[in-house]
């Protein structure tokens, strides 16, 4: 006989399995590409690890946000609460499945990479030297075995970020406001920690390590500390468990406790003194109305992104203040690096936010039933969003670069840097198109990764194939990989291609109302 737990488990599995499937597919595809492209390079495995970890960190946050605010944003929370099952069970099950999704994704990815290496052996491709490099350079701490350390590090960081996002974002109105709250809180924690470090309060490892254990994703920084003093490992474990346990308890206890206030409007029939309020004159043109609306909708997300960028840089700088403060150029570079990397997430989130509300089922009908020109609507939205994204990502970056005295000639020495603007554009457009099609914040975030990378994959793949078949000329061909400059250029071109294709896809989706219909 089926119990209520059975039903609950079935439902949560059903809701999470697609997320698991898409995350695994994307990570494996990404790894496959890197493993294939870099099969002769010695740092290919460390690169797989790094990129995998970089993708997993925001994905962990997104899955956490989905579990925190998903039910409420889809309006299924009242139904769930009407069932005779305690909301704590529901929350605990959700949490369990969320963690399971992420950990299973990690496990499957590891399996995939191992399988790849084994199969590659049959084709006379060996990853042994890269494995050696990984062992040599890889993350330390926790244990002496680098592999285990790497896995532990990933698992702990991802779980920590997931738990923090879910706990902070619980019961929010939708995933985006949950995300804003989560980002602000998590950054606040890191900033406080960095401030304490600066003030010298964290000089002792006994104090620093436990604090890091509790911070979201703190496992990244903790490994070195532990290695230096074995004795505190136990203490760190306990504090980490206690801290995250408290967060889990918060999530489980608060889930579903939403006080829906009866509307606040003044009672009908009472003396209306607000009636004297005037309504300002209307906007001059449809364009200004749409732009105003877009700015009003997006400014919160944009500011959150900006704050996040600044926060991360401050944290990183404070972490090694002696080094950076004396060398402003390095600080500037650090800032540029961080904001460019984090800018990918900012661009993605702004891209989602620009489209998400207007494709939700009810609002979708509202504006479509008015005499609004769909092309005008889309392009004003897209260009406004793009302007916001570019401003929020680049204004602080360029400002910092200028302040620290880095000039364009410095930049030209590092052509890889030009990948970043292309990445931002590609992710912004991919997020827009996926939001229009999937009409769901978390899935749009997950799917924008392949949508953005489709272009560079195709073009780089083509270039490599051309090189191998000798079509690029005798100096570059005959079975060798083309030089880095070509690959970088190919990637940039590919990203710009992704950008254009996704913008056009988003435009068509909005114009012809493509996308996942139905209420949810």
């Amino acid at each position: 006989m089926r119990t209520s737990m059975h039903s609950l488990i079935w439902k949560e599995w059903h809701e999470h399995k697609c997320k698991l499937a898409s995350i695994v597919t994307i990570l494996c595809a990404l790894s496959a590409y890197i493993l294939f492209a870099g099969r002769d390079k010695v740092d290919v495995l460390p690169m797989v690890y790094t990129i995998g970890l970089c993708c997993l960190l925001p994905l962990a946050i997104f899955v956490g946000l989905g579990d925190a605010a998903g039910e409420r944003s889809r309006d299924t929370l009242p139904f769930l609460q009407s069932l005779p099952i305690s909301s704590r069970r529901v929350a605990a099950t959700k949490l369990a499945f969320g963690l399971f999704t992420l950990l299973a994704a990690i496990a499957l990815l590891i399996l995939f990479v191992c399988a790849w290496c084994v199969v590659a052996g049959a084709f006379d491709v060996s990853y042994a030297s890269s494995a050696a490099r990984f062992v040599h350079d890889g993350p330390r701490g926790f244990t002496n075995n680098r592999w285990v350390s790497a896995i532990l590090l990933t698992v702990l960081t991802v779980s920590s970020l997931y738990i923090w996002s879910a706990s902070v974002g619980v019961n929010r109105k939708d995933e985006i406001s949950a995300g804003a709250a989560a980002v602000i809180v998590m950054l606040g924690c890191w900033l406080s920690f960095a401030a304490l470090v600066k003030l010298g309060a964290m000089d002792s490892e006994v104090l620093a390590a436990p604090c890091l254990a509790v911070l979201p994703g703190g496992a990244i920084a903790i490994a070195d500390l532990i290695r230096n003093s074995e004795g505190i490992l136990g203490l760190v474990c306990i504090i980490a468990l206690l801290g995250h346990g408290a967060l889990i308890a918060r999530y489980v206890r608060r889930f579903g406790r939403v006080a829906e206030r009866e509307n606040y409007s003044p009672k009908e029939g009472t003396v209306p003194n607000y009636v004297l309020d005037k309504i300002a004159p209307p906007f001059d043109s449809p364009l200004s109305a749409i732009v105003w609306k877009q700015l009003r909708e997006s400014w919160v997300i944009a500011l959150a992104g900006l704050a996040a960028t600044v926060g991360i840089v401050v944290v990183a700088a404070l972490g090694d203040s002696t080094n950076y403060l004396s060398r402003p150029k390095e600080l500037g570079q650090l800032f540029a690096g961080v904001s460019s990397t984090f800018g990918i997430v900012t661009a993605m989130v702004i891209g989602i936010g620009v489209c998400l509300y207007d494709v939700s089922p009810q609002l979708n009908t509202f504006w479509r039933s008015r005499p609004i020109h769909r092309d005008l609507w889309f392009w004003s939205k897209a260009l406004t969003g793009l302007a916001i994204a570019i401003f929020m990502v680049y204004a602080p970056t360029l400002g910092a670069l200028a302040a620290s005295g880095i000039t364009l000639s410095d930049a030209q020495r590092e052509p890889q840097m030009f990948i970043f603007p292309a990445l931002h554009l590609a992710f912004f457009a991919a997020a827009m198109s996926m939001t229009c099609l999937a009409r769901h914040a978390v899935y749009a975030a997950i799917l924008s990764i392949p949508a953005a990378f489709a272009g560079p994959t195709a073009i780089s793949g083509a270039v490599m194939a051309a090189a191998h078949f000798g079509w690029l000329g005798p100096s570059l061909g005959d079975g060798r990989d083309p030089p880095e400059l070509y690959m970088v250029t190919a990637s940039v071109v590919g990203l710009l291609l992704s950008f254009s294709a996704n913008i056009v896809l988003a435009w068509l989706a909005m114009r012809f109302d493509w996308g996942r219909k139905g209420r949810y």
Partner: protein
Amino acid sequence: MNDAAIDLQAVGKTFRNTNVLRGVTMRVARGRTFAFLGRNAAGKTTLIRMLLGLLKRDDGSISVLGLDPQREPLALRRRIGYLAEDQMMYGWMSVGEIVRFVAPFYPTWDHEMATRYVRDFELPPKTKIKHLSKGQNVRLGLVLALAHRPELVILDDPALGLDPIMRKQFNRDLITHLQGEGRTIFYSSHLLYEVEPVADEVAILHEGRIVRQSDTETLRRQVKQFILSRETLRAVRSQLHILDERNDGDRIAVTVEGAEVVQRALSAEGAEFRMVNLNLDEIFEAYVAGRTGEDVPAAKPETELQPLS
């Protein structure tokens, strides 16, 4: 023919192998209040979406205010006011802000009128939409649908979920502000008793077809229930257009169309009969849920009532 505000000819629409609408022919004259009745999922919202140009029709032709909604949707929407059931608007905007936002899209927008409506409907301009009550939400939707002086106003079950007092107020607003200005109103609903006092003409949509269209007085005059004996029914059956039959012992209650003709025929036969007036609910039920002929279940043996003595 240009006098019609809405003109549908043999319109059909299929969704995933289900025929949602077929052969729908309907004409709404200008300046009239036209009520469109049907059960839930009868195809009312689909039809309204086609009038606005939001859905493509599969067959037939549609002409709204002389324009084809598929070819010129924007020009059409500028001249139409639309209020949907449970209309959700941007919750973060305030009342004043959404009025300012929607205004530039309509060339005939009358901002003074909009302000006046907001005041008359007692809507607080600085309150955010997500804090409005349901009744206020509907009234705000009405403001947005009226302030640009549309020739035609389409209402898709707008009073859904309002409490009775708000519904009455809504009907009052409809009559004062819409009928009073001579606009054409196309009103879709399944609250029949609400609709009847307000409407001039009524059309009943059932299983994708219009089964009846006429004004309410004529409908009542023509659709009545007759209580006859079985023999009488058998004798005149071929002359009747029967919508519904009910057994009642040895008598049968039939709901028919063309009551005047039937009455004359029965009187001519000299048969004994009783004629019952029906309200709009019963008329509607006869059209959409009526059972005739073989569907009628055999009479159950009734328990005998002891006479009072």
